[in-house]
Each structure stands twice: as C-alpha cells, then as structure tokens.
C-alpha cells in the first residue's frame, strides 16, 4: 500500500483542495499537504533496503487482464532517488510560488499535485502500459501550467512542448504493443509487465535497419530522447522553460527531464542490449554535440532563464554519455548527475524567478552590480553556480567527474571532447555572473522600484536553504546517496546483456 499511497496522495490532496472555501487558505493548506507528503516519503528510507538489487515494496493487481496489463508498482535503487527528488520539490515549489502566482491560485496548486502524482507514477510503474499512462498524463498539468501562467509566448511554447513530447511517446506505444504480443508468442500469455519484457528474446541483426530490436529500440529512444532532450530534439526545451512560470520550470527541469533518462535506464538499455551497444556511438556523439552545442548557445543568450535552459541541454548531454558508456563510473555518475541537475538547475530557476519577481526583467544587460544591492541573493546564486559548473566540493563535481571517468575507460574521444563542456560551462555561467552581479550598476539595480529591496526575504531563504545544504552534502559525502543505488547499478551493469529483475517479497 505504501507506494500506492505515495503516488495517489497528491491526487487526493488535489481533490480536497477543491473544497477549500477561501482562496487565501489554498497556499498554506497545499504547503501543509505537500510537506506532509514529503515527510511521508521519508519513510522510504526505513522501508527500502539498499542492499538488495531487486524490486521492493511491490504491489500488483490486475488492471486490464485482456492485454496482460497490471497495476504493478515497485521501487529499486534506480528509481529511489528520483522519487525522493520529486517528493522533495513539491513543497519547495509551493513555498517558492507564494507570491509569484497571483491568479487562479487553486487551479495552480491542483495542477502541481496532479503533476506530482503523474511523475511519481512514472518512476514507480513496473508495468509498461501503466508507465505509459503516467508518462503521458504528466503532460497535461504541465501543458496547462505553461499555458495558463506562462510568459508572453506561452501559447506557442506550450503547444510545441505538448506535441513534441506526445509525438515521441506515441511511437513508444506502438513498440509497447509489439512487445506485449511478443510475450504472447514467447511465453504463451499476454503480459505488459516489464519483468516479462526483460526475459524476451528480441532478435537483433547488426547493420540491418529492419530488424525487430533495432526498430523497437528506435521507437523507444525517440520517445525518451525527446523528453531528455537530446540534441537535435531539444528545440522544445528553451521555449517551454522560458515561457513557463518559475514553479513550472523547476518541475520541468528537475523532474520531467529525468523521465527521459530514467526511461533509457529502465527500458532502452536493459530491453535492447544489443541495439544499445550497437548504437552507443550515435548516442555518445549526440551527447557530446549536446554538451558543446548547449554550452555554446548558452553563452550567447541575453536572457538569464534562456541561458539556464540551454545549460540544461548541456548537462543532460553528460547524463546521456554517462549512461551509454556502460561503465560503472559512467552509469553511477549519470544517475548522480540526474539528481545534481535536478538540484542545481531547479535552484537556478528559482533564483531567476525570485529576481524576476522584483524587477520583471531577465535581461542580463539590465543588471550589473547586483552583489552590493542583494548580498544574500548573490551568495546563494554563487553557490548554485558553483554546483552547476562542477566546482569540487559541490555535487556537480562528483557527477561530472564520475561520468568523465567512466566514459574515458570506454571511449576516450567522447571523454576528451566533453571535458571541453566543463570549461565552456564555467565560461558561460561565470561570465553571466560577472555581468549580472559585478561591475557598474545596471539600470535595474540603479533605479530599484521594488518595495522591499532586491535581496531575498526569509521565505526565500527557507526555500533556498535545502538546496544549498544538499549541494554541499551531495558534494562532500556522495556515498550517503550513492549507497542507496549501488546494488541496483551493480546489478544493472553486471546483467546488462541479460537483464532481469526479481521481486523482493
């Protein structure tokens, strides 16, 4: 019952919110709900056994037996931290949007709660169709969030976001249907169960496009590559990020992008080991292009939020090359980098949102000398920047270092090229920091019209504190986090070519 409660509590909260009579009670009530949900999710630390690589806390009930579909949820080391990240962000996002979301407050909170359910469901589903349902369902609240509370080009951005992602995932649906019928051929019984999919023998012929495994691999990869997003499927991301309201950007960057990389870890690599191996160079090349291209484009942005959005493309490139290096360090680093990116980019979007709320501008040119006007804000921003550019001692360093280490063992050229991304990352972030925080005062800092000054208030400090604690904690004591996933990652790599998951009873 634990995981079901974890997934559907936010939905219950969303329904309960409908009965909150006064608009001004909505925020505290939602915050209380979300905090409760987060505290509830902390029980996972008690129930989850990190020593086992098997699926834990499994729940399985038939849902649509006609097609072998079950309501089947479970958790292992791969999904563990992503679930924690999701639960952690919901209350933060509510607190962060306390003043920035002014209209239709109730709908907004309902949207976030539903989004949380969909995201948790995506990470916890072991049934492929259930996964698909949650994966798709997560689009709707995000679509509404960008469209209803977004910036000036929100309609274009939200349409593009929805259709782009929907396009990829529908191919995955056809591939899923094929796999379901393959279980019938091979085991005599329809099953949409991921554990059965792992046991399938999917024929692969190298150098031939029309071999079953290649086609299925491409269908799945397309869906997840768009979600990640990998170069050249990334074009929806800057639009969506820039137009989304701050909480939307945070959720999108921190969790929704991880659905893509998680999909690669959960579906693509274990299901199609031969095709993954065969196409790994393609992914490495695209990953490296993504790292460098994302960094270069970020460098020339004039809008801070857009810069952060493009830095996401670059960071997600690291995750991809880490995963497709198929080495222990690479995959561990990839998983770690997913969390890092969630923390650091999430925090960056929050920071950008805080200053935007005061000045209503994200133009780098308009700022300058912000360090003297908003010292606390500057400190927080610098710490998060260091995390983003992987300064040793912060979480970003561990992730990128592990990825580069792992990639170097299997493909030296990819590692060598992607190292340049680290330098470029430092360039675009620090250059932006220099122009925004130091130097002569820009017009916005000079003529400060905001009521309470430019610096952050106590609420915002509370919002940022957990991020800063996590940045150092994850940077200094990575094993506190990695130990929870270690067994699963070891199992993942050891049995990559004949992956199987057992259920822990």
């Amino acid at each position: 019952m634990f995981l079901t409660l974890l997934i559907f509590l936010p939905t219950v909260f969303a329904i309960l919110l409908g009965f909150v009579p006064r608009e001004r009670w909505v925020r505290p009530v939602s915050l209380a709900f979300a905090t409760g949900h987060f505290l509830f999710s902390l029980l996972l630390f008690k129930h989850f056994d990190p020593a086992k690589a098997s699926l834990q806390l499994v729940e399985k009930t038939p849902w649509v037996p006609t097609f072998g579909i079950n309501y089947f949820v479970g958790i292992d080391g791969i999904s563990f931290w992503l679930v924690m990240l999701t639960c952690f962000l919901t209350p933060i996002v509510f607190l962060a949007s306390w003043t920035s979301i002014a209209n239709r407050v109730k709908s907004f909170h309902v949207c976030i709660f539903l989004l949380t359910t969909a995201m948790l469901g995506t990470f916890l589903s072991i049934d492929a169709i259930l996964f698909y349902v949650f994966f798709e369902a997560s689009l709707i609240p995000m679509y509404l969030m960008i469209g209803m509370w977004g910036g000036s080009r929100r309609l274009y951005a939200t349409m593009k976001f929805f259709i782009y992602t929907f396009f990829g995932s529908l191919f995955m649906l056809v591939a899923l249907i094929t796999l379901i019928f393959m279980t019938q051929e091979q085991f005599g019984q329809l099953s949409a169960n991921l554990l059965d999919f792992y046991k399938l023998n999917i024929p692969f012929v190298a150098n031939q496009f029309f071999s079953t495994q290649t086609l299925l691999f491409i269908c799945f990869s397309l869906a997840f590559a768009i979600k990640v997003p990998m170069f050249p499927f990334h074009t929806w991301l800057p639009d969506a990020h820039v137009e989304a309201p701050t909480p939307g950007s945070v959720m999108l960057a921190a969790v929704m992008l991880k659905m893509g990389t998680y999909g690669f870890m959960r579906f693509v690599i274990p299901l199609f080991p031969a095709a993954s191996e065969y196409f790994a160079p393609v992914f490495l090349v695209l990953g490296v292009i993504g790292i460098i291209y994302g960094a270069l484009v970020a460098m020339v942005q004039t809008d801070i939020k857009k810069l952060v959005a493009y830095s996401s493309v670059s960071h997600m490139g690291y995750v991809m090359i880490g995963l497709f290096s198929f080495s222990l360090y690479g995959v561990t680093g990839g998983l770690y980098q997913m969390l890092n990116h969630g923390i650091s980019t999430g925090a960056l979007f929050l920071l950008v949102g805080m200053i935007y709320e005061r000045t209503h501008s994200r133009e780098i040119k308009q700022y300058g000398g912000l360090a003297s006007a908003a010292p606390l804000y500057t400190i927080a921003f610098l710490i998060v920047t260091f995390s983003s550019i992987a300064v040793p001692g912060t979480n970003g360093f561990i992730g990128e270092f592990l990825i580069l280490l792992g990639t170097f063992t299997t493909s030296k050229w990819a590692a060598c090229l992607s190292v340049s991304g680290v330098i470029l990352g430092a360039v675009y972030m620090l250059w932006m920091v220099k122009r925004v925080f130091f130097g002569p005062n820009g017009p916005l800092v000079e003529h400060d019209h905001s009521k309470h000054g430019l610096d952050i208030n106590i609420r915002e400090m509370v919002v940022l504190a957990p991020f800063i604690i996590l940045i150092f904690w994850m940077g200094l004591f990575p094993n506190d986090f990695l130990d929870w996933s270690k067994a699963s990652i070891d199992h993942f790599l050891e049995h990559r070519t004949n992956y199987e998951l057992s259920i822990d009873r």
Partner: protein
Amino acid sequence: MQLSLGWIDFLLIGPALSLFAFSIVPLAVKVLRGNVEQNSFATLCYGYMGIISAAGFLIATAGLKQTAFENALVFDGISSIAGIIVLLMTTITLTYARDNYSTNTRQFSEFVFLTLNCAVGMLTFIWSNDLIITFVGLELMSLCLYVLIAMSSEDKFSKEAAFKYFVLGSFASAIMLYGISFIYGSAGSTFLPDLKNVGASLISTNRLFLMGFVMLVVGTCFKISIFPFHAWAPDVYQGSPTPVTGFMATGVKAATLAFFLRIMASQTLLAERAWPIVDVLQWLAALTILVGNVGAVRQTSLKRMLAYSSVAHSGYLMIGLIAAGVGGENLVGASGVMFYIFAYALMTMGAFGVLSLLETHEDHDVTFDDIRGLASDRPIVALAMTVLLLSLGGVPPTIGFFGKFFLFSAAVKQGFWWLALWGVIGSVISVYYYLRPVVAMYMQESVADQPMMDRPMSQFVVVLMAVLVVGFGIFSEPFFQMFIQSVAPVF
C-alpha cells in the same frame, strides 16, 4: 415459401416497435390539439418513454433467439452492443434538442417523431441479416436524417446541408443497391450467412460478384465518410442543427459499422482475389486519417473541426475493420471496432453537447473566438470539454486512449504495422487541433461576456459524458471482456 412467425419474433423487434409506437404519440397529441405545439418537456418525455421501453425490450429479449423472421434479422452480440449505443445516443440527442435553439422550435414534436424513427431505421440496419433488409433500414435512417437536417426554419446552411446529404446519400444508396443486385445475380441470394459460405469462392471466380461486393463496400464507406467519400461530411455536419450533427456522427456511424463488421465477418476478403480490395482499404484508411486530421487543423468553426475529426476517426476505425476482415486472429480487430465506436460515441456526443450549449441563437456557428475564457465563466463545462477533447486525442487515462490502444493492437497483431504507425502520426496531428479549444478556453481572455443559458439537463449529460470517458477509461477491463465475448460468436 412458407413463412412461420412466432410471437418471439415480435418480442425481438419490440425495441423498434415501441420506438415507433411512442414516436406517434407526440404527433397525435399535436394534431388533436389543433396543430399547436405542446409543452416541449412532455414531448421529450414521450420520446424518453419510447426509448426506455425499447431498452427494456432489448434487455429482456437478450439471448432469447439468434435470428428472427426466417433469419432475416439477427440478434447477436454486435446487434445488442450497437443497439444499446444507438438508444443511448438517441436519448442524448433528444435531451440536447430540447435545449437547443434550432431544434426546440414549433416543430419539436416532429423532431422527436423523426429522431425515434431514425433510431428504428438504425436498429433495423443493425439487425439486418439480409441485404434487402439492410437497404430498408439504411433508407429509413437516411430519409429521417434528411428531414431532420433541413428542419431548422431559419438556417440557410441547414437547407444546403440537407440537400447535399440527400443528393450524395441517394447516390451512395443507389450504388449500394446496384451492388446488392449484382450480388443477388451472381450468388443467387442476398442472405449474409449464404455469402459467408460462397463469398470467398465467388469473388475469385465471378467478376460480377466482385463488382457487387466493391459497390456494397463503397456505399457503406459513404455513410461513415471514408475518403474519398467524405467530402459531404464537413458541410453537412456544419449545416445541421448541432444535436442532429451529434446523432449523425455517432448513431449513424455505430449502425453502419455494425453492418460493416458483418460484411467483414463474411470472410469474403480472405480470397486471394480480394487482396487488392484489402490493399485499397488500407490506403483508404491511411488517406482518411490524413485528410481528416489535416483538414481539421485549419478550421475556425468548432463544428467543422469536429466534422473533420470524425472523418479521421472513421479512418482509425477502418484500421480495425481491416484487421477484422483478413481472417487469422481477427477477434481483436472486430471487438476493437465495437469498443472504439462505443468510446467515440461517448466523447463525440459530449463534445457536440458542449457546442449545443454554447449556441446562443439559431444560426450560431461556434468559433474559437466564442469559447475564449470559458474556463473562468463556466469552469465545469470547460473542464468537461477539455476531458472530452483529450479523450478524442487519445491521451491516457481516458477511454479514447484505450480505444486507440485496442485498435492499434489489432493492427499490430495482424501485421499492419504501417497502419498502426500512421494512426499514431494522425493522433499527433489531431492533438494539435484538439488542444486549440483548450488553449482558447483556459489561456485566452474572454472578449465579450457569453450570455450562456442554464441548461441543466444538457449540462448534466455533458458532465456525465466527461466522467464516463475517464471512468470507463480507467475501468475498461469489463468492457474489453464484454465486447470480446459478444463479438466472438460472429467471427
């Protein structure tokens, strides 16, 4: 020929008889009152009573006997499912009609009369086991529809639509009848079970039969607006009063598909000579999906958009029909078609209900501008519309998603990969135009305040449809089982 009729036969056609009997009542009352329209609610109640008694007969006689009237009518799983859909859609049509400006006029009694008789025609069409009966049912249905479309007193589009539908519909009926005569000439029978025995061999040896069969299929394709016989659909859908449009889009399609499934069950397409027909049907399915979806993208009128989308949905259904017709493991395809038409009926009827609610006068063609900011004025209606549109687009966990899942599964199972992929691409295009109203409702400010009237009954139906679309989507298993079990004996 010796005819032996038992009382059971009349019980079995009880639904049609009771519909007809109750359809007379409002007209009779009106005549007795000196041609003065009585209270529309009373008229509506006569209609409801007819439908309730029809449903009672349908349920009570279920499984009583397989065929009636010397095997001319058949009562199997397909009949009962399609019959229930038709009755449900008739109920909803009447509900909408009373709340709509262009149908609740001085001729509401006639409207109820025609709608109920149209339902009688549909039921006959569904039950028909003999091509002559098929034709009778089809014509009864169509003739009622021609008048229903033209009945609006002011709308000039409605006259144009009625005339268009009448001319093209008659043409299609003529082709179908011509085809039936060829079939009779070559096979010596118009009896569908006979065709099952001789069809596959005759189609390989007898060109006349081949032509007859193709004409029969063409006539049927016209009714469900398969490309290239779809051109009437947008104009006719737009011109008709909205409740009638909904009735046409759902009831007619359900009835025609039931018949189409019977043609597919005749196993005629299994013959080698018929493979080109399967190829052509595949192309028609693909083109229908393309034309429907691309056509809908540019529309500004919601009704026209839904018309094109209904063309696209016919294309998806065609995929299932092909999967059902080519033998092998065709049960998934056949029951997929029935499930999809059920799903489609719910969501389309709901969407047309919202349009009907939004119309403020008789000639009103609801555009995207009209629904701007609806979410703040009418949150519940807007939410219902959003759910219905997402379901039409096939977004989980709605019934539209499971319908598509079922159909595409059938295609994949039968090896029609490219149709499944094509259907998927079509769905992506469709999501674009299904989301445009959502954008208008939720993300744009309203230009003028909409004096939307309170129509509790229609609103209730619309919300109910939205709830069912989600509810039946999440709990679709019993339906899957039910549909597979009822279709299995036919295939």
